């Protein structure tokens, strides 16, 4: 049961542009069958007095979904609803039948979250320790955990860095570690919050390749239009509302028009 | 924003303030022209932890700093660390960080609603100087076999520096209260 998603081609070998709207073949992961459906119904949310999301209703089922919009448009808040990091003031978010307001633990197992700044996401001093962190609460044996860590290190080409201080990694390596730390718990879906914002072109392409090669569902919030150009569906946020929900080409065109 | 208790966030605050206190050792010490005693930024750690995180989290952050020193990290100013520190004569001024942060934090919580730089300075001075010295001086006297009076006189050279630190802490506490308040004010009968 462990080796579900670990037998993929090594990330990075696959070019980002190579991923079209055809979903990648899903590896038979235990949750893959239930990875399907995130329903957001009539959701509104505000911070103190500022509304950030206004009455949003949308159902997400595609394997690659992009979310774009200006700074402050509400897209990051929206992303945080999807795994229960935020519970909306009004409305409901339901992941495969689980309400984020009630079944928070189960939702978090299903939906992983990669933050913009890997420095805030890596919480243990060394690479291997950090990878092992997500496995702690899962009731696995020590040997089994070590095996999963080793496999994940190999999958991301981090073997040589296992006992290195995470602080010494490059920006690109840190983001890889952050992603690996989420994937190791085998979520069915991963939400990325601006995963390439802090990276140079080369690392951006590498991370794009990693995302393209995932067997898991990926929902990516970004300003990087190339990253989502091959996705199945793209949502455009503006002032707390979804103003376009379409193919990448048309959604990006609408976004660019609004940015004029 | 959310004033709701969040244990994970509390652990993070505690760990980050322990790390911050360690990082303060990296700031170059100021030397006061008249007295000639170097003032290290690090001993602001307990005052800052109390004034910003409050009594409980501030004190726990200092417990963590001391534990990190004990397991051997060279995080005290001058690169000191390890159990050897605890055999030294000034260990009371390290262990005293815990009650110092706690008292500083408690006073800030009690006076949170009407906090001014003056009141914050007083709170920091009571916690970070009065309480700290009340522990540091007897320990110094015991460890070094001095009379209390001799230990107290010897410690007085650090008071001017610590007053400056209390003043800096007050300015920081008031700014942080405005920009990013963390302390939950002590329960008061609502007027």
């Amino acid at each position, binding site marked *: 049961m462990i080796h579900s998603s670990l037998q993929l081609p090594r990330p990075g070998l696959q070019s980002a542009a190579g991923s079209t709207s055809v979903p990648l073949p899903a590896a038979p992961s235990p949750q893959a069958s239930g990875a399907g459906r995130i329903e957001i119904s009539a959701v509104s949310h505000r911070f*103190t007095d500022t509304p950030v999301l206004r009455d949003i209703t949308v159902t997400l089922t595609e394997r690659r979904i992009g979310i774009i919009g200006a700074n402050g448009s509400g897209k990051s808040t929206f992303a945080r609803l999807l*795994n229960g990091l935020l519970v909306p*003031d009004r409305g409901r978010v339901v992941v495969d039948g689980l309400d984020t*307001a009630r079944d*928070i633990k189960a939702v*978090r197992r299903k939906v*992983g*979250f990669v*933050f913009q*700044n890997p420095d*805030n*996401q890596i*919480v*243990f*001093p060394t690479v291997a320790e950090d990878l092992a*962190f*997500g496995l*702690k609460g899962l009731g696995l044996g020590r040997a089994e955990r070590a095996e999963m860590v080793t496999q994940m290190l190999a999958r991301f080409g981090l073997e040589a860095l296992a006992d290195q201080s*995470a*602080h010494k990694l490059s920006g690109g390596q840190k983001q890889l570690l952050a992603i690996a730390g989420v994937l190791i*718990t085998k979520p069915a879906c991963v939400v990325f919050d601006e995963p390439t914002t802090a990276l140079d072109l080369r690392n951006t392409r590498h991370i794009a390749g990693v995302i393209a090669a995932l067997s898991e569902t990926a929902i990516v919030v970004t300003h990087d239009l190339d990253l989502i150009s091959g996705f199945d569906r793209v949502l455009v946020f503006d002032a707390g509302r979804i103003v376009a929900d379409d193919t990448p080409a048309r959604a990006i065109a609408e976004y660019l028009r609004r940015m004029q | 924003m959310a004033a709701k208790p*969040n*244990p*994970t*966030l509390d*652990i*993070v*605050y*505690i*760990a*980050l303030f*322990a*790390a*911050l206190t*360690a*990082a303060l050792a*990296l*700031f170059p010490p100021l030397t006061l022209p008249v007295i000639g005693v170097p003032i290290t930024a690090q001993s602001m750690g307990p005052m800052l932890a109390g004034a*910003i995180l409050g009594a409980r989290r501030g004190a726990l952050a200092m417990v*963590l700093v001391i534990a990190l020193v004990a*397991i*051997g*990290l060279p*995080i005290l100013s001058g690169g000191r660390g*390890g*159990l*050897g*520190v*605890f*055999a*030294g*004569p000034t260990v009371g001024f390290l262990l005293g960080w815990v009650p110092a942060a706690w008292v500083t934090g408690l006073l800030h919580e009690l006076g949170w609603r009407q906090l001014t730089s003056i009141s914050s300075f007083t709170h920091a001075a009571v916690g970070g100087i009065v309480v700290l010295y009340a522990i540091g001086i007897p320990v110094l006297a015991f*460890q*070094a076999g*001095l*009379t209390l009076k001799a230990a107290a006189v*010897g410690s007085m050279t650090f008071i001017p520096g610590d007053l400056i630190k209390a003043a800096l802490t007050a300015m*920081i506490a008031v700014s*942080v209260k405005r*920009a990013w308040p963390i302390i939950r004010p002590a329960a008061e009968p609502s007027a």
Partner: protein
Amino acid sequence: MSALAALLRRAPAGAKLAALAIAGTGVMAIADWRVMVDLALLAALAFRLAGCGTDALGRQLRPMLWMLAALFLVQGWLVDWATAALVVARIVTLVLLAALVTLTTPAEAMIATIERLLAPFVRFGVDPGRVGLAFSLALRFIPVIGEEAERVREAQAARGLGHHPLALILPLIVRVLKSAEDVAAAIEARSGHDDPGRAAPSRSVW
């Protein structure tokens, strides 16, 4: 590697800490300054034999050299020179023995020992797992915050504010507080923790 070095490195952290506690109590019973000075020299010798080297010895003692010298003079002047030698030798002995334990025990072994020692306190509400998490987080963020401090210092120097301590510390603290919320969110997102304090999501009270 000498036999002592091998022994010290292999001994469990708990045993070394216990031995240190016993030694710390034991030296208090010694009243003859000559015995105490001999013990201090023995401790220094043990330091060398354990492979910790003269450098490490210097690093331990140098920061307290002035303190010890002043102490020696004050004691000698106020009490007598035998007491002065006794007190100083006692401090040096304990500092060296303690440093010996620290230098031969990796930090992870110490943390594991602390978690074990805390086990009996579970019934008083102490959670060893949380303590371990706090240690790990601090170890992780000491270099991160150190680097941030350096960056803030450069930025302020570029603006000509280099000497004001407030200009250095305030931005550092605000950054630390801001990242704390992200770090906590990341921990919750990754660990599937649902802590009791947040289980009931009543976010609608604004």
